[in-house]
């Protein structure tokens, strides 16, 4: 083999090896996003990263679950904190409450936008608290000492039993109680954990026994519209309720307890400034406002961070 060909081969092999080493280095330094460095990205045109906040205070790490509303809330918290000079890092789109919660306890995350009712159910499935006060009181005793909740906002994103307009007209449905007579003929859809949590409750409180439970998860609103299910668990701030003309049935017996948007924090990670900033957000956030924001994110396809920024500005917080 000629020396020239040998040389060329060596160059190619060398380049490939260098690329490989480089890639491995990138890979290993990326590592665990929950322990520092870049995170799963936010839809804000770049990875969440340390913000150039003022002061030498420790960084507040804001996390979120992986659905648009939670990312929006995380972004609101994060930008509200930055506006008050707190150093913030964002770690959004984490897939499960279990991990989120674990990371919060270990201090890798500092703040999470939570729903007080859902959080309580996660921690204590047997709890019967339904009003905002009762739920928050129960949380105060159930949460470990390292964690705490700040002020709840009036805004709620609750579970609902929703039906299409046609179904509502057909069976004359306005409240969940109205379903009792017809439930046996109806198929109900929702996220997988919905059935295990609610099946017995519906029986006990409203006397409902549905014909079939379908795990429709993210597709519940679509399934209601297309007729795949007749009743579905759609979250109350979901713009699809308006878009698809769904009817969220009233819940007079309050089986779906309070679900106020509440910051869950690792107490050692937040100082007075941060707490004040987050409480100011909670004071101004209401359900109508949140629903309008979600419409911008889900219907107008705007980025959660941009929508959050506008909301903060118009409320004097950003």
């Amino acid at each position, binding site marked *: 083999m000629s020396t020239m060909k040998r040389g060329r081969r060596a160059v190619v092999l060398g380049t490939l090896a260098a690329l490989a080493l480089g890639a491995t280095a990138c890979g290993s330094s990326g590592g665990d996003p929950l322990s520092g460095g870049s995170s799963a990205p936010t839809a804000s045109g770049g990875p969440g990263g340390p913000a150039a906040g003022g002061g030498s205070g420790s960084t507040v790490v804001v996390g979120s679950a992986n659905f648009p509303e939670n990312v929006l809330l995380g972004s609101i918290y994060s930008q509200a904190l930055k506006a008050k000079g707190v150093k913030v890092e964002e770690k959004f789109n984490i897939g*499960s409450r*279990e991990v989120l919660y674990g990371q919060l306890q270990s201090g890798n995350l500092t703040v999470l936008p939570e729903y007080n009712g859902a959080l309580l159910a996660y921690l204590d499935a047997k709890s019967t608290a339904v009003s905002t006060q009762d739920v928050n009181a129960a949380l105060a005793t159930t949460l470990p000492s390292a964690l705490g909740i700040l002020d709840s906002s009036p805004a709620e994103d609750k579970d609902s039993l929703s039906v299409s307009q046609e179904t509502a007209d057909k069976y004359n449905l306005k409240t969940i109680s109205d379903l009792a007579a017809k439930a046996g003929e109806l198929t109900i*859809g929702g*996220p*997988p*954990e919905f059935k*295990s949590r609610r099946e017995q409750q519906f029986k006990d409180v409203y006397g409902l026994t549905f014909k*079939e*439970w*379908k*795990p*429709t*998860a*993210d*597709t519940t609103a*679509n*399934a209601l519209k*297309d007729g*795949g299910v007749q009743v579905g668990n759609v979250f109350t701030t979901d713009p699809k309720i308006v878009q698809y003309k769904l009817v969220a049935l009233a819940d007079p017996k309050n089986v779906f307890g309070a679900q106020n948007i509440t910051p869950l924090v690792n107490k050692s990670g937040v100082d007075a400034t941060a707490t004040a900033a987050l409480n100011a957000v909670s004071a101004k956030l209401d359900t109508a406002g949140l629903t309008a924001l979600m419409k911008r994110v889900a219907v107008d396809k705007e980025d959660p961070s941009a929508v959050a920024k506008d909301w903060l500005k118009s409320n004097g917080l950003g």
Partner: protein
Amino acid sequence: MNWLTWLGDFFTAADHRSGPDSIAHRVSEHLVLSGEALLFAALLAVPLGLLIGYTGRGVTVVTAMAGAARALPTLGLVTLAVLFAGVGDTAVLIPLVALAAPPLLVASVEGVRGTDPDVRDAARGIGLTHSQVLRQVCLPAAAPTLLAGFRTATVQVIATATVAAYVGLGGLGRYVIDGLATRKYAVTVGGALLVVLLAVAAQLFFALLARFALPPGVRAQHRAR
């Protein structure tokens, strides 16, 4: 993390023994979905592949396209299909067919091309028409390669059909995804195990088919290679 207890719980849970979430039902959902995908893929890919392999035209293009199709991410295709076609079997079949067709196509092409050209010549020489040559000479000779292609496609489809559960459909993916959502890892592991068992069963099926259904001469030749 006790695997045996997990699996024990999974297989004996009341929900899993009868009703819509029963193992039998989910397995049959999974098989039906996979079967439909393979059927459509075969109807599309095999005749096309046989033709291309026989005429020798378009082989490079087809192989390149088949390679490109392998790059298409199933999750992406499934979500896109559901957005346009709504939740239902159709939406999921499209990506699964896109997954199964390329190996079947390539296998058909390679199988026919692998036929000894002398044998093809001889067949033409004794007066067989092109389609007769294709059917009576090339197809049997291509059978082992085709079967291998079917085997690959089947295993891939069975494994990937689990993604259907993400868009609300049934099948064994339901166990995997629901187990994750409800923190019942036993269910996830049970579902994954069932998928593996199904895939292994499919492989055994094709191995048996190759042993007993192929013409003896073809089998011998294939082994000798």
